C-alpha cells in the first residue's frame, strides 16, 4: 500500500524515470511528499527510499541537510523573513521582531494552531524589494510591519490561496512530456558526429601540414 496518494505516486514514478540514476529523484520526491503531508513522515521517507533504491536512513540524512525539507511537522504556511545583508539594510531585523510578536512565536517556531511557521531566512534573491518575505516560497513583496499584519490576516482568512498554495513547492510544476530522446539513439547520433569531427580534424591537420611544406 502506497503512502503517497495515487496522483502523487504517479508523478513520483514519472520523476524517477527522468534520471539516469534513480537516486537523483530523491529531492524532487521529498518535495512531493511534503505537498501531501507538509513534512517528511517516516512512511513517506520509507516510500521515497524504495522509489530511489536507497535506504530510509539515506533519505533522512539527505533531507536533514536542506532547509526546505522538514523532518518534523511544520505549519501550513512557512513565512520566511530574509534578514541577510540587503534586507538588513532595509530594516529586516525590525520586521522580524514585529513578525515574532504578531505571530507569537520566535523565528523557527510554529503557532499553536499549526497555521504558521516563522523562519529567519537567508537571501531569497529579490533584493530590490526589501525586506523580502516569502510565504511557502512564493514572493509576497517587500513588507512593512503594517502590511505584514494584513498579510497574516489574509492568509488566515484564505484570501491568498490562489497565489500561495498550502505546502509543497512543486504544486504547479508539471512536466507534461516524458524523456523523448532515446538514450541509445543519442549514443548512435553522438558516435556518428564524433566520427565526422575526427575526419574534419584530420583533414584540417593534413591541410596545415601541406601548408607547412609549401612554406618550407
Amino acid at each position, binding site marked *: 500500500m502506497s503512502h503517497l496518494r495515487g496522483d502523487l505516486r504517479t508523478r513520483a514514478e514519472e520523476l524517477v524515470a*527522468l*534520471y*539516469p*540514476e534513480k*537516486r*537523483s*529523484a*530523491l*529531492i*524532487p520526491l521529498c*518535495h512531493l511528499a511534503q505537498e501531501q503531508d507538509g513534512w517528511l513522515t517516516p512512511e513517506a521517507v520509507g516510500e521515497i527510499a524504495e522509489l*530511489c533504491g*536507497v535506504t530510509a536512513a539515506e533519505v533522512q*540524512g*539527505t*533531507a536533514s*541537510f*536542506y*532547509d*526546505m*525539507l522538514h523532518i518534523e511537522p511544520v505549519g501550513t504556511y512557512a513565512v520566511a523573513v530574509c*534578514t*541577510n*545583508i*540587503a534586507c*538588513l*539594510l532595509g530594516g529586516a531585523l525590525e520586521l522580524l521582531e514585529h513578525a515574532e510578536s504578531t505571530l507569537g512565536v520566535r523565528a523557527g517556531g510554529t503557532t499553536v494552531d499549526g497555521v504558521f511557521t516563522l523562519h529567519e531566512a*537567508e*537571501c*531569497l*534573491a*529579490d*533584493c*530590490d524589494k*526589501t525586506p523580502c518575505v516569502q510565504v*511557502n*516560497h*512564493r514572493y509576497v513583496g517587500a513588507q512593512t510591519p503594517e502590511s505584514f499584519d494584513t498579510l497574516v490576516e489574509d492568509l488566515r482568512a484564505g484570501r491568498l490561496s490562489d497565489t500561495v498554495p498550502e505546502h509543497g*513547492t*512543486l504544486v*504547479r*510544476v*508539471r*512536466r*507534461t*512530456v516524458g*524523456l*523523448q*530522446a*532515446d538514450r541509445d*539513439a*543519442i*549514443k548512435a*547520433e*553522438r*558516435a556518428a*558526429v*564524433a566520427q565526422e*569531427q575526427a575526419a*574534419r580534424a584530420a583533414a584540417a591537420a593534413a591541410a596545415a601540414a601541406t601548408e607547412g611544406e609549401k612554406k618550407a
Partner: protein
Amino acid sequence: MAITDAPKIVTARLGYDDSFTLERYLATGGYAGLRKALTMTPEAVAAEVDAASLLGRGGAGFPAGRKWSMLRKNPLTYLVINGDESEPATFKDHMLIEGDPHQILEGVLISAYALQVSQAFIYLRGEFALGLERLQTALNEAYAHGAVGSNIFDSGFSLDIVVHPGAGAYICGEETALLESLEGKRGFPRIKPPFFPAAIGLYGEPTVVNNVETMANIPWIVNNGGAAFAALGAGRSTGTRLFALAGHVRNPGNYELEMVKTTFRDLIYAPVLGGGIRGSNTLKAFIPGGVSAPWFGPDQVDLPLGQDEVGNAGSMLGSGSIVVMDSATCMVRAAWRITKFFSRESCGQCTPCREGSGWLERIMYRIENGAGREEDLDLLMDLCDNISPGVAWPPQQTTICVLGPSIPSSIASGIRMFRDEFLVHVKEGGCPFD
C-alpha cells in the same frame, strides 16, 4: 566613463508583460540562434563562443569557452546549468529565470549541440517556486515546438533537458556540491583535484557546469557572432553583464551594462541607474561582488566594472551584486550578519569553516551587543587567519571549497576600514547606531 549604448543582450525581452511565453519569444527572434547553430558544425558553434571570450557569469569568472574545450575530447557527457543563485544580494538569475526562461533553454540547447552532450539538467534553487513553474512550462512548450527532444527541428540532433529543484542550501551553488545534490545526496563539495567536473562530474562522467546568465548570452553570440560580443567591454571582460544593485540607493535593481565601460560611480549615482544614495546620507562603503568579496570605500568608486579591474584592486566582481551601505549603516552589524550567514550555510565538512564561522559569528555578536572586548579585534583577525592564512586577497584556502576563505572578507574589511567603529562598540558597551 559613461553608460554606453551597448545592446541589451540578456534583458532585451524583459519589458514585455508576457516575456516568459513561447509566443513572445518566437515573435522576438527566439530559437533563431538554435536553428542557425544546427546548420553549423558543433566545432564552429564552440569556436564562436570561444571568440566571444565569454567569462562565466556565476562568480568565479572562468572563461566558458575554455571550460568547454576541456570536454571536447571526452564523448559521453552531461551539461548541468547552475540556477541555484543564492549569493546574498544577487538576484539577476532569478529575474532571467522568471522573465525569459526560453532564452536560457535556447542557450542550453545550443551549448549542448556544441558540446555534443547526452543530456542536460537545469538545477534551480528550490525557493524559486515561480521560476520552477515558468521554466518547466517553457520546457513543455519548447518540447511541443520541436526545439527539445528527438530530432530537434529535423536536424538529426536530439537532447533531453530536465529541470531539477534544489531544496535550500547555499553551498549547492558550488559546482561539485551541486552535482552531489543532483545525485540525491547532501550538498557536500567534492575534494579537489580533479578541479573541474570535466574530469569526474555527474555520476562520475565528464560534465560541464555553467551558470544561467552564461547560458542566456549564448543565443545572442550565435546570432551576432563571437566577434561582435568580444567587441563590447575591454580586456578580458567582454560583452555586457547584469549587475544587481542593492542596499541604500534610490533605485535598487538589475542593470545590464557594458563591461569595463561603466564605473561603480555611474552605477550607484547615475539617475537612470542607482539614482544616488537614499535620503541625504552619503556613501560609507560598498561590496563589489557578493558578500564573499572584500569591501570597497568611497575612494574606490571610480573603478570600472570589469573582472580584472576589480580583481587588481583587491576584491572581486564575483556574482555581479553590488551592496551599497550609507553613512547611517553600522558596519559591525553588517559584518556580523554576513558572518552569521556563512556560519548557517557552512556544510560542516571542514573544521576551519564549520567551527571558525561559528566562533567569528559569536564574537561579532557580542561586540555588536555591547559585550565585546578590545582584544576581540585581534582574536577575530587571528581566527580569520586560521581559516584563510594571511587574510589576503585572493585568499589562501584551508578547506575543500571556497566558502571557507570567503568568511573573513567582511570581518577583515570591517576591521581594516572601520576599526574605530568597532572600538566605539567596545568602549560604549553597545551599538552607537541603535
